[in-house]
């Protein structure tokens, strides 16, 4: 059995990626299972989805703890301890990261056991779909190709099935994208392994606790800023202080309250928490806030 796990952010099409892969596997004569895992996740928040592929009926259920293949749609997730995309990866796991960075730099940085595969899917999505954040078909194509189990024609058919509601032009753009991603990558050899189950350790013994300890009480105030939401950004607002007239409209409009007035009365953006909604750029009367690609910005700063 091949167990695949997709990581990305709400809105990037992670669930759809797992569905396209599942359908493509099914069309190629396999049994398949695909499902997302989400509770209260929303646009921008980390999302995970799974696909299982096997020749035999799949009786395994639940999230994939030890994947053969992990696909990370958003490289900013790699260092997110809550998303933990590399969790459960071992020497048999192949990890694909949507990144233009060198694989060995990621391997060292993240202490991975195997060399990751990197592929700049965002650029390809921009090229074909004119939208760098919609990764569903690109990720599915990458996964299908890496498995080496799915021929291109079944993959394209699966895309047509899963994107049935799309206009013919949109569908065609996705098919072109899938074709390019498929041809860009090479299959990986996977070794069969046993799933060790969702909880490899012993089940936790539950003990009676005092209500004070057991109830989710928070005694700190205003500590939410310990959570950094800056890595949600796909776009990055940047204030052009030459143009800015300090009207502070951006500060008033920011839903997160992350634009502050500095000592000189200028607005200043807290990039640790800015989610990149870009309301500030849209509402700025002087058009003094630029919209940059976060991806490009990271590269510039290196």
């Amino acid at each position, binding site marked *: 059995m091949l167990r695949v796990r997709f990581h990305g952010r709400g809105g990037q099409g992670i669930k759809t990626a797992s569905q396209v892969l599942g359908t493509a596997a099914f069309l190629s004569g396999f049994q398949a299972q695909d499902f997302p895992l989400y509770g209260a996740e929303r646009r921008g928040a980390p999302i995970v989805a799974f696909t299982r592929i096997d020749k035999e009926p799949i009786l395994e259920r639940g999230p994939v703890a030890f994947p053969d293949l992990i696909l990370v749609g958003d490289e900013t997730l790699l260092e997110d301890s809550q998303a933990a995309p590399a969790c459960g990866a071992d020497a048999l796991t192949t990890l694909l990261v949507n990144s233009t960075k060198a694989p060995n730099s990621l391997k060292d940085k993240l202490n991975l056991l195997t060399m990751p595969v990197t592929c700049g899917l965002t650029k390809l999505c921009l090229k074909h779909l004119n939208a760098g954040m919609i990764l569903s078909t690109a990720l599915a194509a990458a996964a299908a190709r890496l498995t080496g189990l799915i021929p291109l024609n079944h993959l394209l058919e699966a895309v047509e099935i899963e994107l049935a509601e799309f206009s013919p032009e949109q569908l065609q753009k996705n098919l072109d994208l899938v074709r390019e991603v498929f041809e860009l990558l090479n299959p990986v050899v996977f070794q069969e392994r046993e799933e060790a189950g969702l909880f490899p350790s012993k089940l936790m013994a539950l003990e009676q606790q005092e209500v004070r300890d057991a109830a989710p009480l928070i005694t700190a105030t205003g500590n*939410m800023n310990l959570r950094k939401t800056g890595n949600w950004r796909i776009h990055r607002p940047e204030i052009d202080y030459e143009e800015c007239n300090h009207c502070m409209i951006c500060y008033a409009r920011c*839903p997160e309250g992350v634009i502050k007035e500095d000592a000189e009365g200028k607005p200043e953006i807290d990039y640790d928490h800015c989610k990149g909604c870009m309301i500030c750029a849209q509402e700025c009367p002087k058009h003094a806030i630029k919209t940059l690609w976060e991806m490009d910005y990271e590269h510039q700063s290196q």
Partner: protein
Amino acid sequence: MTTTAEHHKKIKDLHPQEGMAPGSPLCAGCGGLEGIRLALKELGDNVLVCNAAGCFTLLSVYPFTPFKGSWLYTTMAAPVPAAQGVRDALDIRRSHNRLANEDDFQVMVVAGDGSSADMGLSPTSAAIHRGLDFIYFCYDNEAYGNTGFQLSGTSPFGSATQTTPVTGEHPAGSEIRKKDLFEIWKAQNPPYIATVSPREPIDLSNKFARAKTMKGPRLFICLSPCPTGWGVDPKDSLLVAKLAVDTGIFPLKEYVDGQVIHNRIPRKRIPVEKYLEPQKRFHHLFVPKRQDDIIAKIQAGVDRYWERYE
């Protein structure tokens, strides 16, 4: 006019302190978040929030809270009974001299439209009847947004939701009109009701400044554009809020001393389709074929409303 001097006239009059810490997992571009942020800027730190289940469940995710004051989480139907409980507890402490007046809390219910207009309406009505001293902040995104955008009592006529999809038999999507929560509350004659828009920080702040000096049940209905559910780009979220006011779909008004006061009567209302067209939930009214009858019906509803005040 009972409205007192306006505290805020320009952006720089807004209270500089933020009532909420950033970092919550709410969607980027959430209109409701901007609404409650501005509200708490005005109300200050001594606010005890009774939060009904909904999108704003995610305001506080254990072990983190954005609030300087207290936060109590309740089921969807029970934020108002919770507010009664904490208000009573605070009052008992005060009567025993165990809580100084300046340490008292403003009790504020924070609930979505599903809780406010559907599930929690009965205990709310009872609390208004009893004259419970609390502020009610309803972030109205016109559907059950947290669970994937299903129809609520306040979903507007002509909008597509998960439970009212557009079909051959139902080309309008939802065929029922939005419940008017303002009028429902007004029927019980509470001391204060207001509608607020996250795109109008001055108007919003002045309304909270007025309400915080009052006692008894006080309602705020905050139109909360939902990029995810309404199908708009997060950056356009507040633009849509502006269009809601400029088209007259969402009147900015107050109810004080038995009188409804409109804070802004749009002199020349722009056609409703300018508000509808950018939103995916109204997409079917324009593509593949314009449904002029439905658009006209929505426009007629707005025109009928304003005829009384123009």
